[in-house]
């Protein structure tokens, strides 16, 4: 694996150009071009503010910020998984004609999505600033924001690992992308994106099970990831549970974060190993 890493380093220039190409092609034939990368998160912020601030009115101040803090990383992982499913297949004509380390294909997909995640968080912080100007009691900058680079790194490792696995598997079995699509759809509801982890803890079923459901729920690393972003970037907040009651903010057990880091790092290493094992078979798939 070290030999492959060394070779990959030799081709870093190609990776750079590939990422550039992905970013360009995405909006190549559109009038607004790269501006779409900004517009997408802006529209998301607008819709969420409207729905959760005005229509549903949950009672949590700047609820949409709490949604977005989890929504952005979740979408990043989702796009990485779904896009990288096609990354090797779409370039099959190319890799049948010319050699370069095949790892570059899913890596370029993940990195271009990562750039979109960074843009998304840029918009996110602008939104926090605007909220702060309108409601000075909402502090836009938490001490936990310093953890953002670490969180981004963990997300990137997870995305790279999943990208390697999905792109390699989908090249041989094209059902994988449908399985991945369904899995991501389910995980969206099984992760605290549209709700809070405190609400999971307070469900009757969880209390009856002696908090076991809560533990099992957090075996899903995406659930931990979503909560990690939320806790780091935003002020702790009381969450309405069971109708009229309110739950104080609950900190996650540090073990869950350890699990998240171990999972992400492990997936990256395993994905890279697996990809390298099968990459020579891509062009020969029966």
């Amino acid at each position, binding site marked *: 694996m070290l030999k492959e890493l060394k070779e990959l380093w030799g081709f870093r220039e190609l990776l750079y150009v590939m990422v550039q190409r992905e970013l360009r092609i995405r909006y190549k034939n559109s009038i607004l071009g790269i501006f779409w990368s900004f517009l997408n998160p802006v529209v998301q912020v607008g819709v969420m503010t409207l729905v959760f601030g005005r229509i549903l009115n949950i009672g949590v101040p700047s609820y949409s910020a709490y949604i977005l803090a989890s929504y952005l990383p979740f979408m990043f992982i989702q796009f990485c998984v779904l896009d990288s499913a096609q990354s090797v297949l779409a370039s099959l004509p190319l890799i049948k004609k010319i050699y370069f380390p095949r790892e570059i294909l899913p890596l370029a997909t993940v990195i271009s999505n990562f750039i979109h995640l960074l843009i998304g968080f840029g918009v996110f912080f602008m939104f926090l600033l605007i909220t702060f100007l309108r409601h000075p009691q909402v502090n836009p900058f938490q001490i936990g924001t310093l953890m953002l680079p670490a969180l981004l790194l963990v997300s990137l490792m997870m995305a790279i690992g999943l990208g390697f696995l999905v792109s390699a598997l989908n090249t041989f079995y094209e*059902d994988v992308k449908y399985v991945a699509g369904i899995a991501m759809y389910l995980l969206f509801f099984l992760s605290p994106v549209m709700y809070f982890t405190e609400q999971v803890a307070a469900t009757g079923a969880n209390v009856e099970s002696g908090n076991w459901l809560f533990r099992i729920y957090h075996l899903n690393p995406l659930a931990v990831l979503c909560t990690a972003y939320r806790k780091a970037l935003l002020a702790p907040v009381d969450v309405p549970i069971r109708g009229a009651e309110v739950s104080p903010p609950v900190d996650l057990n540090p073990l869950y974060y350890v699990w998240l880091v171990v999972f992400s790092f492990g997936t990256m290493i395993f994905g890279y190993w697996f990809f390298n094992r099968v990459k020579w078979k891509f062009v020969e798939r029966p």
Partner: protein
Amino acid sequence: MNKTMIEMKGVRKTFLLSKSGIASIKTLLLWWKRRELAKLDVLKGVDLSVRQGECVAVIGKNGAGKSTLLSLLARIYKPSDGEVTIHGRVAPLLELGAGFHPDLSGLENIYFNGVILGLTREQIQARLPQIVEFSELGDHIGAPVRTYSSGMQARLGFSVAVHVDAEILIVDEVLAVGDYNFERKCFAKIDEFRKAGGTILLVSHQLELVKKIADRVVWLKNGIVVQDGSADEVVAAYLAEDPANN
């Protein structure tokens, strides 16, 4: 001088062909015990060595394994058995324009292709005028490649490949795409490349062309080297076996 650039020792290549066609998890689960995978031996132990400055042509009928041989040298495949050793940078011309993205402009594609072939962006920047001039694309270089004719794509692809300072050029039947003038220009460039000490391995069905530019010809038949010698000798033997080969 005259060091070995390409060395193939006992190279075999076997492909697995699935009879059912589409690979899917369903077929994997349903048929995992009786999957029908036909084995196809394309190369059955090929030895070949090419020294620096040589121009070697591979001839043979369709299905003899010529393209597989070139693909192995271009590192598209790994040999099933045996060893392939290459000393020096390879520019494969397996299909002109294969590495182009239709939505990007000619200019952007030059960068993309050049980087795949191992140049840095600065190096490409430095050669850009030569590449554009050789391709004769003029103002079209800024237009998306999907608007190009096949001849224009071929010119651009060849132009990039000969300007990356490769030591070995691997050519698969691609020079027949451009018009007469461009073909002549390509051959002039190939001559220049060889005078500078470059090594060429090519596949062609045009026996006259092979006799003209190759020093040595390798006749491949059903995955085995039948004859390896001077161009006139091998081409004559090849024609003698079956006059229809011409």
